[in-house]
């Protein structure tokens, strides 16, 4: 260490980061952090399963046929003939009593019919609520027509000529990769930003903050804390990657494969890591600023809620612009600091141009510096407000230089 009368900003940030990194890595909080991604996965699987079941139960395609015996059999035979061609567009058919009024059939408990077909093949009648009539009139008319001809139409065989992909398929695939990347980035960042905030609140509760503020410039404290949490998160990501790789190797081809991004996997993953770091540093510095504004845990929760909501909006902005590369909205999402990492990661999945990433990373790095500097100033103004840790005097403090 040089013989100077102070630590440089980076040395000071390193001292803070070193302490925080070790303290978090060997804490129970880190264990919960490692387990963190399990919760959204479990909830996602459960919600998906339950949602699918509900969807299946709600979207029944069963239509009751209340016609004469002959017409009913002809209609069922016609459905069987058309099913190989357009099966998914046709209703399921069930035989109902032709002597019972259609309205009564629709109300039969436990049957779950969406509509009742009556009348004759020449003049079928469809009884159902209006939306179901709108939806099923066409398919029912087609079935009645097919049943009425009593002939088997000759469908020509379609010769398959498969290709690896098409522009449409590739685009769809890469959008899926972009969406997955954005979602992962968002979840990770929210998890970490919350952790850095609670770390700071704990520090205020421990009353260590004044010792730090007296010894080193506040932006060094700020930077040290952010870097420590970034380091912790990289350890976490390494652990998750190792576990994920092990599961992938064990599962073989049983896992769904994500389509390769436009820049290829190695560059995409590297960019993903850098965008994650940038996004986290931006969001983390915002959360640290909130920590500086708040004096109690309750205040922290109150103040962080709008930022969390705003971050959700930012995520939705970036997510909704995926399908419109080059549009004004996508360009805005790429330029706005908080949505830029998401938008640019989506670009990496869909476009192989590299220069926009160089530009975006430079812009994001500049924003990180500004955010950290601004956050440190606010923090410094608010964190030491009076003799007893800021309780006696509330409010804004006069102009303060950042050091």
């Amino acid at each position: 260490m040089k013989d100077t009368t102070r630590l440089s900003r980076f040395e000071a940030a390193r001292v803070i980061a070193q302490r925080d990194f070790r303290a978090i890595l060997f804490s129970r909080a880190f264990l919960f952090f490692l387990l963190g991604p399990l919760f959204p996965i479990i909830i996602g699987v459960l919600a998906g399963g339950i949602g699918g079941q509900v969807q299946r139960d709600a979207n029944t395609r069963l239509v009751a046929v209340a016609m004469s015996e002959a017409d009913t059999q002809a209609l069922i035979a016609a459905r069987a003939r058309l099913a190989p061609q357009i099966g998914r567009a046709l209703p399921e058919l069930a035989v109902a009593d032709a002597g019972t009024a259609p309205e009564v059939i629709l109300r039969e408990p436990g049957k779950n019919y969406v509509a009742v077909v009556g009348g004759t093949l020449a003049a079928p009648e469809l009884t159902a609520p209006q939306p179901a009539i709108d939806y099923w009139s066409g398919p029912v008319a087609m079935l009645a027509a097919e049943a009425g001809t009593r002939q088997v139409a000759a469908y020509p065989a379609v010769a398959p000529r498969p290709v690896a992909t098409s522009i449409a398929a590739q685009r769809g695939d890469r959008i899926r990769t972009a969406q997955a990347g954005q979602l992962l980035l968002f979840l990770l960042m929210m998890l970490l930003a919350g952790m850095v905030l609670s770390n700071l609140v704990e520090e205020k509760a421990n009353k260590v903050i004044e010792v730090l503020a007296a010894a080193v410039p506040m932006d060094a404290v700020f930077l040290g804390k952010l870097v420590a949490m970034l380091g912790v998160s990289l350890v976490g990501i390494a652990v998750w990657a190792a576990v994920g790789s092990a599961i992938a190797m064990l599962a073989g081809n049983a896992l769904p494969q994500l389509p390769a991004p436009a820049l290829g996997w190695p560059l995409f993953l590297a960019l993903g890591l850098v965008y994650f770091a940038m996004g986290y540093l931006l969001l983390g510095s915002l959360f640290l600023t909130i920590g500086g504004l708040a004096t109690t845990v309750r205040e922290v929760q109150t103040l962080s809620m709008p930022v969390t909501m705003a971050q959700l909006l930012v995520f939705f902005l970036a997510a909704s612009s995926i399908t419109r590369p080059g549009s004004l909205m996508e360009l805005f999402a790429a330029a706005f600091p908080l949505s830029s990492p998401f938008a640019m990661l989506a670009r990496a999945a869909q476009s192989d141009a590299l220069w926009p990433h160089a530009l975006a990373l430079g812009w994001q790095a500049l924003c990180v510096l500004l955010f950290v500097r601004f956050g440190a100033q606010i923090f410094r103004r608010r964190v030491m407000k009076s003799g007893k840790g800021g309780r006696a005097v509330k409010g804004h403090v006069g102009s303060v230089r950042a050091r």
Partner: protein
Amino acid sequence: MTRPSGGDNRKLAIEAHGLVKRFDDTLAVDGVDIAVPEGAIYGILGPNGAGKTTTLRMLLGIIDPDAGVRRVFGNDRPHEVAKLIGYLPEERGLYPAMKCDEAIAFLGALRGLPLEEGKARGRVLLEQHGLGHAVDRQIRQLSKGMAQTVQLLGTLVHRPKLVVFDEPFSGLDAINQGKLEVMIRELAHSGTTVIFSTHVIHHAERLCDEVAIIAGGKVPYAGSVDAARDRIPAQVRLETRSASGPWRSALPGDARHDAKGEASHFWYFPVPETGIEELLKPLIAGQAGILSLSIERAGLHDAFVEIAGEAAARALEEDNARGAKP
């Protein structure tokens, strides 16, 4: 050791001119001037809420003044000389999960001391202060007093040239207060400048070479303790057997009288300009029956009342009565 002389060519560890700090509509510090000579023990004396902590925070660069300048070892950016400073805030705080030697080393590292060296020095300091057995204990496992000692050692581990204590005696029992007084004297003896804030007059009176009396954000007096005391004329305390007689005319007309029974009368008045000898002659000749006579120099408390006013003195006494728990 060279004690500060009070001359004009003293090297200053800290100097501040016209410091102002406002929090919203509260003027916390209003034009404070302070000059702390190198090697001095300097006290900032005042009741809670007077602006002591805010002043110290401005001097250390934790917060910046709205107006005025401050220089620490000639530098107007205190963080630029952070390695030369040790600071113990009023609200003590350490990381509960840290071991004692790690906590001391971390505080040293913040001031530029390499971690390993800090740990080694920390172990020695803990041993010297009777906490050798606690080296590997976590802070959360220590008593409050022990944790305070650990933080104090962390404040000193990098061997600063200037040590700033904010209410260092608050929360300490009498024995530990005594130990801290010894430590402060030793620091000053080794050439370290010590500045501390306090609301307890006798700490300032016993320890300080110079004081700044602060009340309502202003510093009405900054200078040597002796000079503060000398602002009030010395008082004569005379005890006589007789209550009256021709000798009474020798006493000033406004002398305060207090009787203790029939044969013990006390008289209080400023030392006459003509001197004590001239006063004694008529008393003896008039058979006043002198039982005792003393010249009492004003204490710092009297000086505080004189300088800061009755209200500030009352606030100070109330703080003391509350044990300084605002």
